[in-house]
Structure formats: structure tokens, C-alpha cells
């Protein structure tokens, strides 16, 4: 069984510090939902409010339509997987997995049987009698998942559980976590600062910064249609041009920047009008060398370096009056680029692949 999780106007304060500010989110039952943000943005605090280790200072947490106020973590239909997993070192693997059943007073044979089933689910059959320290990192990971699932929660909460693993295992576990989620069909709420994890696994992602939910949407929209400068600069890479709006309609906005006027898509959410300070974001892969055909936007730049990465060429360029070097990514199609450092080039990009947003805080580098 899976349940919707609703956060209604949730505020969490620690003294003067606001860890979560006016959070309104509905997480659909049975979906894989991620909170993505830099460390200290309040995402773990929100997770603790859902699991019940923390009561929000204001607002309501509802699970399956039921208000969770005053209900402790041991009574909520949630199970939490800790960042360090918190497996019990003095118990065997199967006792760890069956702990939630032991709490419920299930008999030993039944517990053992259920533990074996879960061990099958996480592809560790017959490993129940091992001690936790005999397992590898990835195996411990899976045991922690099985232990949480044994409680038959409606919502599984995961607090950066992959961060301790090495890159290869992490990528493998992403696929595996997503597969387990689809097999058991319950709601997964996943906390991470790794956008790769959030984008690959989730149905929906909430990007958080300084206690505020910046945007909630699916992975592709998050990448292609950022609604705030923070999201545009935090998710993926983006080139930023600052300027002032000279023209604005529902489709396109023209911003006068240091590289000249740029015509960019008007963000669905943001309202920009003439004279406003604005940011224009252009992805490195949206930039191309001008090939003579007319384009919406053309800017002049000086090549700084070209880096060959095999699959891609990364070209770093200086623009007049720019405070940062801009970056262009080109797929390696077999052609040598061969621009000498200092070469003057023209770059172009279509208006649909640039987005104009109101000025606002950016993600830290």
C-alpha cells in the first residue's frame, strides 16, 4: 500500500534559524520523489518532519490524508533509511531485517520466513546468518532497504543512503533502488545533493535552497524549464548573461546584456516586464559556432581553451564585459576544432534554448 504525503504550509524553525519556509508539496502515492539541494538547505529537516522525529513549527504533515501531528516516528506508516544506514551491528542480517516484525510480536519462524523473502527481494538469498560487518558496502545498503521494507511502510524515506558508496556502486544502486521501488510500489522520498541521482530515479524532484522549495517538477522539465535562477544554476551547467529587459511578451523576452540583446524564452512562471533586471541562461550544449545561417542570437567571443574529452569538446570562451568565462559543449563528430587560443569566433543559439528569468540568488559554485 502506498500513501500520498502532503506538506501544507510547513515551517520549521530552530530559534531564529528557519530550516523550512512555507513548504507546500503534494507527493503522489507510489511515486519516487526526491528533494534535491545543497547541504544545509533543509532537506533532511523536512524528511525528519515527515518521519516524525521532528514536529513542524507551523503547518501540517499529512500521510494518506491523515494529519500526523502528535504521532511519533514509531507510530507513523513511514520507514527511514539513515545516511549511515544504522544497521544493528550485534544482530545477524536476518535479525536486522526482521526487527520491525519482532517489535510487532511476530513469532520467530514467521520472522525468519519473511526475512528470507526480503533477502530474495534484495538479491541476497541465504545470507541471513551473516553478521552485518561481513557484508560489503552495497550489500549493507540493500539490507538497510530490506529492514525498512519489513515494517511494510506506506512511505519509505531515504536520507542520502548512497553517499558512502563509490561511484560505480552508486550508479548501480540507482537502478536497483528504482527497480525495488517499482516492485514494491510504495512511495519513496529520497534526499540527495546529487542531481544525477535525483534526475535518474525520480518521478518528481523538488529543488530546495535555504529552506525554500524553488521548483517541483519532473526531471526533464527541471533541466529544460528552470523557473528560478537557483534551479537554472544548480541543475546542470548554465551560462549566465545579465541585463535589462527591453521587450517582453508571453513567448519571448529580449534582454539587453553585455554581449548585446538576447532573445530568450519567457519562463512560464516568471513575469518580466520592460526595464526589469534579468538573467538569461544558455546551456553549454545549446551554443554552436555560427555556420552562416541566420540565428535568433549571435554573440562574439574569444576562444580561451579547447578541451578534448573524447565524447565532447569543451570550449571555454571570453565575452566582452562578461564576469565569467562561458562554456560550450560540442559533440565530437570527428571534426577537429582547431581554434587557436585568442581566435575571434561567432556563437549562435536559438531563442527557444535560452531562458530569461528575473534576477535572483544563484547556486554556489
Amino acid at each position: 500500500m502506498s500513501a500520498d504525503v502532503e506538506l501544507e504550509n510547513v515551517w520549521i524553525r530552530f530559534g531564529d534559524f528557519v530550516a523550512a519556509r512555507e513548504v507546500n508539496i503534494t507527493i503522489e502515492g507510489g511515486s519516487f520523489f526526491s528533494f534535491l539541494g545543497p547541504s544545509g538547505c533543509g532537506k533532511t529537516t523536512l524528511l525528519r518532519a515527515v518521519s516524525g522525529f521532528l514536529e513542524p513549527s507551523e503547518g501540517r504533515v499529512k500521510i494518506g490524508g491523515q494529519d500526523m501531528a502528535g504521532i511519533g516516528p514509531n507510530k507513523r506508516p513511514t520507514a527511514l533509511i539513515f545516511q549511515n544506514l544504522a544497521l544493528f551491528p550485534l544482530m545477524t542480517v536476518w535479525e536486522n531485517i526482521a526487527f520491525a516484525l519482532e517489535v510487532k510480536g511476530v513469532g520467530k519462524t514467521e520472522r525468519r520466513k519473511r526475512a528470507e523473502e526480503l533477502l530474495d527481494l534484495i538479491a541476497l538469498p541465504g545470507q541471513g546468518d551473516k553478521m552485518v560487518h561481513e557484508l560489503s558496502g552495497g550489500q549493507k545498503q540493500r539490507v538497510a532497504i530490506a529492514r525498512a521494507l519489513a515494517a511494510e511502510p506506506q512511505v519509505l524515506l531515504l536520507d542520502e543512503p548512497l553517499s558512502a558508496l563509490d561511484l560505480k556502486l552508486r550508479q548501480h544502486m540507482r537502478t536497483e533502488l528504482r527497480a525495488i521501488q517499482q516492485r514494491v510500489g510504495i512511495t519513496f522520498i529520497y534526499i540527495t545533493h546529487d542531481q544525477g541521482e535525483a534526475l535518474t530515479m525520480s518521478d518528481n524532484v523538488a529543488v530546495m535552497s535555504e529552506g525554500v522549495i524553488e521548483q517541483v517538477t519532473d526531471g526533464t522539465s527541471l533541466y529544460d524549464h528552470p523557473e528560478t535562477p537557483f534551479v537554472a544554476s544548480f541543475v546542470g551547467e548554465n551560462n549566465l548573461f545579465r541585463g535589462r529587459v527591453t521587450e517582453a511578451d508571453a513567448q519571448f523576452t529580449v534582454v539587453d546584456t553585455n554581449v548585446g540583446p538576447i532573445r530568450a524564452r519567457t519562463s512560464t512562471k516568471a513575469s518580466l516586464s520592460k526595464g526589469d533586471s534579468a538573467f538569461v541562461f544558455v546551456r553549454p550544449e545549446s551554443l554552436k559556432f555560427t555556420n552562416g545561417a541566420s540565428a535568433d542570437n549571435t554573440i562574439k567571443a574569444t576562444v580561451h581553451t579547447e578541451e578534448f574529452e573524447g565524447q565532447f569538446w569543451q570550449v571555454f570562451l571570453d565575452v566582452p564585459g562578461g564576469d565569467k568565462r562561458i562554456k560550450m559543449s560540442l559533440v565530437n563528430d570527428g571534426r577537429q576544432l582547431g581554434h587557436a587560443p585568442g581566435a575571434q569566433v561567432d556563437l549562435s543559439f536559438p531563442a527557444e534554448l535560452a531562458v530569461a528569468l528575473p534576477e535572483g540568488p544563484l547556486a554556489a559554485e
Partner: protein
Amino acid sequence: MNPNAYFRQFFTRNGTALGTFLLLSVGFWMFIMILLPQAFMIDFSFRHNLPPAEIGGPQDTYTTEHYEFMVYGSAAAEGEFNTVDLGVFVRTLIAAFFVTLFDLAICYPIAYYLAHSASGGWARLMVLSLIVPFWVNEILRAFAFRIMFGSAGVINGFLMWLGVIDQPYDFIRENVALYAGLGYAFILLMIFPLYNAIESLDRNQIEAARDMGASWIRIHRRIVIPFAKPGISSGCTMVFMLSAGALAAPQILGGPSSLWFTQIIYQWFQTGNNWNRGSAYALILLASTIVFVLVMMKVFKVKLGEIAR
């Protein structure tokens, strides 16, 4: 590794001066401070109690009479067994056992609170207030307990004010003062091993268990206590050994009609002027407490190495 190579390596690692100092000081500690006195005691306990002139003479042979006396009493006395000494011995061990349990029951919550709930300044204040009373001399503390538990003491005064009792209760005669005094005397030796053990437990494990619906009792029974077992054993061992072997508190706080086994030992050494019998009694106490602790460790599946951790 053969001993020669081991010593050579020991000296190259520490240098000649430091190596010699370490060997000599550890050797002094082991032989002069521990083994030699115990060896003398053992030797004493197997010899007759002779006037100084006859020591080393033909009368000075080995005997087990002192051990037999502890069990059977003097040949002249009535009854088969030395019921007085045996009774005191058993009572002392039982009382020490309960004092240990009592300390464990009091100290476990305090240690848990210090390790996982108290925050910085408050925790330091608590530790300080636990330690400061022990700057006062042990004898003085015992007398303070005697005054407190006396018929005109604060405790009787308070209970009478509350109306729980209408005339003073004799805490001294009933040994309540003694047990309280003993319990208090070794409280730090229980708290600190417990605190050290509990403090190193990952808080997330407690939260994980709670998240899975475990009650506080189950969390302690399944997670905290198994984890803290080495600390619990270490604390219990120390408190049990020291209360069974305590002398000052029973002398000052003990009731007039009951003896602590150490008081009997003391009497043989001092008033009885029979060091040989005193030694035998002391060794019996030492051996019994060690055996008792080892049996307890076996029962609770604790290894000796874990206690030393």
C-alpha cells in the same frame, strides 16, 4: 617471536633509557606491589600462628587449619560448621551483589542521559556534581551518612514530617545506611564505564529502532544494553569486588548486630593477632569474588577482553 628478538626490538623501539625504565617500573609494579604481597599472604595462610620465637623452628610447618577453621570452626565449639563466619561470608557476598544491582539500576539511566540526552554545559555540570562529593574523604562521607540516617537525622526528620512514620526508624541497625553508603561509595566506578560504552553507540541506531516502532524498553533491551554489555560488566565487576572488600563503610555504617566479612578479617589481624588466619580469610574472600565474577561473565557471555576495553 623468540624472547631475545622481542627484547631487542623493544629496546630499539624505545631506546635504552626509556626501555629500561619501562621494564623496571612495570616489573616493580608487578612483583613488589602485586605478586610479592600476595605470595606472602598465601604463605602466611598455610602456616600455624606461632609466637615470634618459634617461627622458623620445628613447629613451623604447613597446615590448612585456618581454612578448616573458616568452614568447621574450632574443635571445642558446638555444631558441625562455623555458622557465624560462613553466615557473614555468604551475607556479605549477597549484600555486595545487591549493592551492585542497585548501583546498576541507578547509574544506567544517569549514564544514558549523560551520553545521549544531556547537552554540553548541562552535561558537564552533572558530571562535576557527581565527582565533587568524592573530593571529600571516604571516612568523612561515611560519617555524614551516619548522621543523615541517624535517629535524629534529616531522613527520619523528613519522613516524620511527611507523616510516613511516627517514630524514628533505625536505619543503622537495619543496615539501610550501610547499603546506601556502599552504593554511593562506588557510584562513579559504575557510571563511567557505562557512560563510555553507551556514548559510543550511534544515535541513529536508537532512532532507527524507534522508527520501526520499538518501545523504549525494547530499544534498551535489544540495542543499548547489548551494546553497553562490556561497560556494564566492567562497572559491575568493580563495584562488586570493592563492596565485598570494603572496610571503612561497614565499620562506620554497619549495624551493631551484623558484621561484614572484611570486619572479621580485620579482627583476626588486629585484635585476634592471628595474621595467618586473617590471610586465609582474605584469600577465601578474594578467590570467591573472582570465581563469582567469572561465573557471572560466563552466564552473561562476556569475555575478559571486552571488560578491559
